[in-house]
């Protein structure tokens, strides 16, 4: 197990490096004028060009630029925006909102998704099962963008059950956007769990468990559930990436001041350094989540641990 974790960690490092290199390359290394990339359409005076060139080492060879950038990353210096505010400060200010939103979303995803999936899986072809099947198929297909607006319109404006924007209501204000953010993933988790359980119930080792005279509840909980969770855990990890992308949209529609909306504003305002900074952070977080999922996978499935 320790060796497995070490191996996974070792693999993660080049990926993190590579990903940050990719982000860096996209902004600073593509053919064209990097000043334009940083400043966008903003008119830049020669003095500003000078400052930018110095700060980002634009006259140096590419690898020096990247090295300086990396060094800065590790020291927590993600650069500043055009008004001189450090990107790190912006992140510190807005990250908590996104964290809360993501927590709410993941809780919904796991609790509702798993429960619906398990119940549907053990009662295959029942009314509930068909209900889950149809509803999840439909929900998965609705883009988060659309769902956000519809939810806002319906539950916020028309029915007034939830606040339509902002975070003044505390955790309650995260319920609707969290649900919206989680919707597609929730539906997928339900489906995956359902199929996984139904499949595992037909497995040979479940047949053995029955032949051992074990009570039905024990067969489902001990012998089927854990095996069924394995693909679901894998999916949840991979899906965090989708959640990050979805957070941008959700925060924008619901006007939540998180890093998602911050990215959106930065794109709008053409603040290249802010975009790079936040995206890099999100990517590192995603990679970290995948690592956690890999480890969890090994905990759940002993076949992975021992070669």
């Amino acid at each position, binding site marked *: 197990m320790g060796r497995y974790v070490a191996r996974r960690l070792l693999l993660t490092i080049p990926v993190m490096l590579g990903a940050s290199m990719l982000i860096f390359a996209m902004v600073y290394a593509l053919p*064209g004028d990097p000043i334009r990339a940083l400043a966008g359409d903003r008119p830049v005076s020669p003095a500003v060009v000078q400052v930018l060139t110095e700060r980002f080492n634009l006259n140096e060879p590419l690898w020096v630029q990247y090295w300086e950038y990396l060094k800065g990353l590790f020291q927590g210096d993600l650069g500043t925006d055009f008004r001189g505010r450090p990107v790190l400060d912006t992140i510190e200010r807005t990250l908590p909102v996104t964290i809360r939103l993501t927590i709410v979303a993941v809780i919904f995803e796991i609790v509702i998704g798993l429960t619906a999936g398990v119940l549907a899986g053990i009662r295959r072809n029942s009314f509930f099962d068909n209900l889950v099947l149809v509803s999840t198929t439909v929900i998965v297909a*609705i883009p988060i963008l*659309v769902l956000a607006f519809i939810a806002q319109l319906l539950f916020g404006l028309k029915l007034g059950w939830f606040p339509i924007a902002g975070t003044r209501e505390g955790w309650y204000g995260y319920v609707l956007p969290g649900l919206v953010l989680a919707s597609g993933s929730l539906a997928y988790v339900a489906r995956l769990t359902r199929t996984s359980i139904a499949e595992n119930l037909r497995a040979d080792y479940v047949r053995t468990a029955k032949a051992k005279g074990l009570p039905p509840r024990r067969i489902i909980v001990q012998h089927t559930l854990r095996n069924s969770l394995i693909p679901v855990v894998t999916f949840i990890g991979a899906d965090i990436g989708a959640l990050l992308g979805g957070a941008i949209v959700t925060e924008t529609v619901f006007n939540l001041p998180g890093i998602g909306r911050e990215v959106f504003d930065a794109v709008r305002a053409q603040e290249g350094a802010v975009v790079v900074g936040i995206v890099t952070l999100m*990517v590192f977080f995603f990679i970290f989540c995948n690592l956690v999922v890999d480890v969890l996978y090994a905990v759940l499935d002993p076949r992975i641990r021992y070669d």
Partner: protein
Amino acid sequence: MTDQQADLRKDEIEAGTTTGLASPSVDPLSVRQNSLWSDAWAALKRNPLFWIGSVLTVLFTVMAIVPQVFARGQDPRACDLANSRALPSAQHWFGYDVQGCDYLSTVVYGARNSLIIGIFAVVVILVLGVAVGAISGYFGGVTDGILSRIADIFYALPLILGALVLLRVGPETSIPIINSRGPGAVALALALFGWMTAMRLVRSQVIAIKSSDYVAAARAMGAGNTRILVRHILPNAVAPVLVYTTITIGVIIAAEATLTYLGVGLQRPAFSWGLQIEAGQGDVRDAPHLVLFPSIVLTLTVMAFILMGDALRDALDPRQRA
């Protein structure tokens, strides 16, 4: 289980083409051995969701090709500010938008861009994914190691995030197409951050098949690498990739709308549902139809492909047979 087998299984799960894990031993009740495709077609025909999906797909494809037919003779560019934000009526089913243009035709014309982007992106994904996946899986070793790490790196950037950054800087670069701010740019950006899963799928299929008996037989008969890859291995990798491709068209169309809404996708005066939603969001209280109609049409289009893809997956997966 080896690392490799674990990876293969993970790939399939993440691509949504299988649920992995347990497979019961030979079913004593399976009486006939039909080929995969004829069984699949029989299962597809029975599935109502497949029919809904394919009808919708055909509908929107036709809408993309000949939008005039659906626009009821209205010209989306014939706008009169006097009609700004007018609600739906018998003449104008979708009402008018902010500029006073007929909304039905505006929304209908949006189908073209979405489908073009969806199909173009998916074609690129397929070409990239199949090529890299096949080479990686077939030759293994260092080649596989490098290509897989490259895929991992791209994979670390979620679709929307990666495309967002690329499209944000794109117009300031000198790369053709990417700097155009048009459908080509959006499609390419999405494909660039969406090819990895197709690659992993193909790679896992290739790895699974290349050690099979009939490939050994082909090699013993003197077939070269290319021939083996193309004639023997790839045709068998088709099934999960086909499922993934269909679903991905839907995902891409949704992603384009999102990116356009966020401001980095298509720009005015192009017809895009993302633009229409973005334009209408300020009037959501008084004129909700501005956001509603493009949302509904967008959803139905995405749903069309996802329904078909789902139905295909259920039909092709032997373990799903009830």
